[in-house]
């Protein structure tokens, strides 16, 4: 039966044993894509969804109309945030193997997406992240120790032991709670933005999901509601080419960009080099200003690459070439910003090594502090009865009784 099949199945460019192949990636040289007025009609912006906004060229210079002209200090801060995120991820990955935390997800290779965007936004803008945007916490200044305590589900865990590692939240930092269910945050961000418009707030809602997650119904709900009510929202598809083992062609990326979905719904769509700190920053500024001035939502596709395994439960060697990432044409976001700063004479290998060492030291110290508040396996431990709280604002009678049952059960042990 399969023999006579005419079903089209998206091609995956390279599997284990194959040569990495990125010929499918439509690239545009840095500086080439036009920067339209933030007030332009979405129907005049189609080119933004099909080209590729880039600022950093191959000789590490910032070029073209999208150059945000950030001063060196800001770039150095950005580099530091990206590096800290990377060092943190790297350490947590190794610690998970040791069994002290049950699960972890790295953002290796995608740090610019979260860092440049968070830096280009206002602290009062509300962020609805996926599980791979940990750098947002770094930029907004949440102590790493707090994140580690969540990973450890220990006595200082912001989630009171209820959530899987990396499912952070931070009300005072205006970062929404991460759901284990993909894409649900996307239309919620639009609802938040609608409320902002209703209340006359200036703030923008920003949300992220992956190329694979864009297949979920909530992606459509988000674009549709954002379009209908012109909600002040920035919706990001982080196209890192992979959804666990599945290539982005299976999410509809084979014949069309993800950014192009925007114009289809009558909203602006922008395709940006997600590993180009300056380009991401510039596009974010543009979309935020557009939203704040009543221009409505923007869909941003970040073209990047998931350099690490999907999670600590995953082994990419099973489904893609080992050296795939080394061949990725858009390179590494940390390296590219570093080289740009060096080209500007504002950075050096020495300073970079020094910074790396300093951050590793900081992470190591933070970890020591965090484990002092307990781990999943070692005391001190959270009181299990926290399990019954926050199901409702006030604990109803049936949960009080179950709590009592548990107490009795434990007394028997």
């Amino acid at each position, binding site marked *: 039966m399969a023999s006579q099949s005419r079903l089209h199945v998206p091609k995956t460019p390279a599997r284990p044993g194959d040569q990495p192949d990125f010929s499918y990636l439509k690239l545009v040289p840095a500086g080439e894509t036009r920067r339209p007025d933030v007030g332009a009609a979405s129907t005049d912006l189609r080119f933004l969804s099909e080209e590729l906004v880039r600022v950093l060229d191959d000789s590490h210079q910032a070029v073209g109309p999208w150059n945000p002209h950030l001063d060196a200090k800001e770039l150095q801060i950005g580099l530091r945030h990206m590096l800290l995120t990377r060092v943190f991820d790297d350490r947590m990955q190794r610690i998970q193997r040791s069994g002290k935390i049950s699960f972890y997800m790295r953002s290796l290779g995608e740090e610019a997406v979260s860092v440049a965007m968070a830096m280009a936004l206002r602290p009062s803008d509300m962020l609805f992240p996926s599980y791979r945007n940990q750098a947002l916490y770094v930029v907004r200044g949440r102590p790493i120790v707090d994140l580690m305590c969540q990973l450890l589900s220990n006595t200082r865990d912001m989630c009171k032991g209820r959530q899987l590692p990396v499912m952070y939240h931070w009300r005072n930092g205006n970062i929404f709670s991460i759901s284990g269910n993909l894409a649900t945050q996307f239309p919620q961000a639009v*609802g938040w933005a609608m409320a902002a418009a209703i209340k006359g707030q200036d703030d923008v809602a920003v949300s992220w999901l992956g190329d694979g997650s864009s297949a979920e119904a909530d992606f459509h709900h988000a674009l549709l509601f954002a379009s209908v009510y012109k909600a002040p929202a920035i919706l990001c598809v982080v196209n890192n080419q992979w959804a666990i083992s599945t290539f982005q062609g299976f999410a509809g990326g084979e014949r069309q960009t993800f950014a192009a979905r925007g114009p289809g719904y009558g909203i602006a769509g922008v395709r940006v080099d997600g590993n180009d700190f300056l380009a991401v920053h510039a596009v974010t500024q543009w979309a935020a200003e557009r939203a704040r001035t009543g221009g409505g939502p923007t869909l941003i596709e970040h073209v990047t690459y998931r350099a690490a395994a999907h999670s600590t439960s995953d082994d990419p060697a099973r489904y893609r070439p080992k050296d795939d990432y080394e061949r990725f044409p858009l390179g590494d976001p940390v390296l590219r910003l570093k080289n740009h700063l060096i080209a500007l004479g504002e950075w050096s290998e020495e300073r970079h090594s020094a910074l790396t060492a300093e951050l590793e030291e900081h992470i190591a110290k933070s970890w020591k502090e965090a484990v002092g508040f307990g781990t999943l396996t070692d005391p001190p431990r959270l009181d299990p009865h926290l399990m019954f709280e926050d*199901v409702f604002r006030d604990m109803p009678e049936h949960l009080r009784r179950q709590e009592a049952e548990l107490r009795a059960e434990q007394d028997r042990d």
Partner: protein
Amino acid sequence: MAQMNMIHALNSAMDVMLGRDPSVVVLGEDVGYFGGVFRCTEGLQRKYGESRVLDTPIAEGGILAAAIGMGVNGLRPVAEIQFADYIYPAYDQIVSELARLRYRSAGEFYAPVTVRTPCGGGIRGGQTHSQSPEALFAHVAGLKVVMPSNPYDAKGLLISSIEDDDPVIFFEPKRIYNGPFDGDPHKPAVPWSTHPKGEVPDGHYTVPLGKADIVRAGSELSIITYGTMVHVSEAAARGLGLDAEIIDVRTMVPLDIDTICGSVARTGRCVIVHEATRFGGFGAELSASIQEQCFWNLQAPILRVAGWDTPYPHAFEWEYFPGQARVARALKAVMEAA
């Protein structure tokens, strides 16, 4: 005080809350300019404006997601799902998100969303305008589930639901929007004006969530029911001349199990009546809990009267609907047992 049917009472509850609390918004399909296919939101958009009473796209999942986001941003959304039969596209946002947001964020985030939706049969609506899916929500930790059986309770419970910081799924038995219904489709329709609970205060008042109502005190057996079936049960018991204690559950979650078991402990006999399909319906939870707590008082098996375990059939509505005959058979069986 005024005479109101359930539609007026629900409209009045939203009117009162929109007026008192600037954070309250109403959204849903056809709820704005048109005032809703059942007229429950009539006049509210004219009075409070297009950004307090919003017409939405036909996307129940999007409506719920938007309501959650609005709730997180300080609004108090009241979302209408046009028929309970159409709530399933929103099921993921309700079960995975709305119900668990407060829990997973350790109380930092929550969305005080009320979801209003007409449920139940008896209006020749066929399989997609007649469903009673309350059990599919009562099983989900983190949701409150409500179903009123009269205009007075409808307004008081809806105001409580809107003011409540937890998510509430508010079911409205559409067969009794315009008047109580005793299960006999051949009798002329009776308006709410003939019923004491059709007397409704104009202003703000609440009926607390989590409290069942003893509609009729009695000694021979306890009938545990809610929604339209409260009226059918009353008629069936009257028809048999039984001194039944009839309890309107009103709130399925949190469940007022003490009032319910207190009654069964006294009468020793119990019949549970609902419109939803029987297998795995909310009656199963009621029966199981009552049996656990009242086992030694029971003089007869607890029986359940419910819709058959089939989709809701258009042409056989009155053979499907658990009317007086079906309730009466169970009441007799329970009285004759021993």
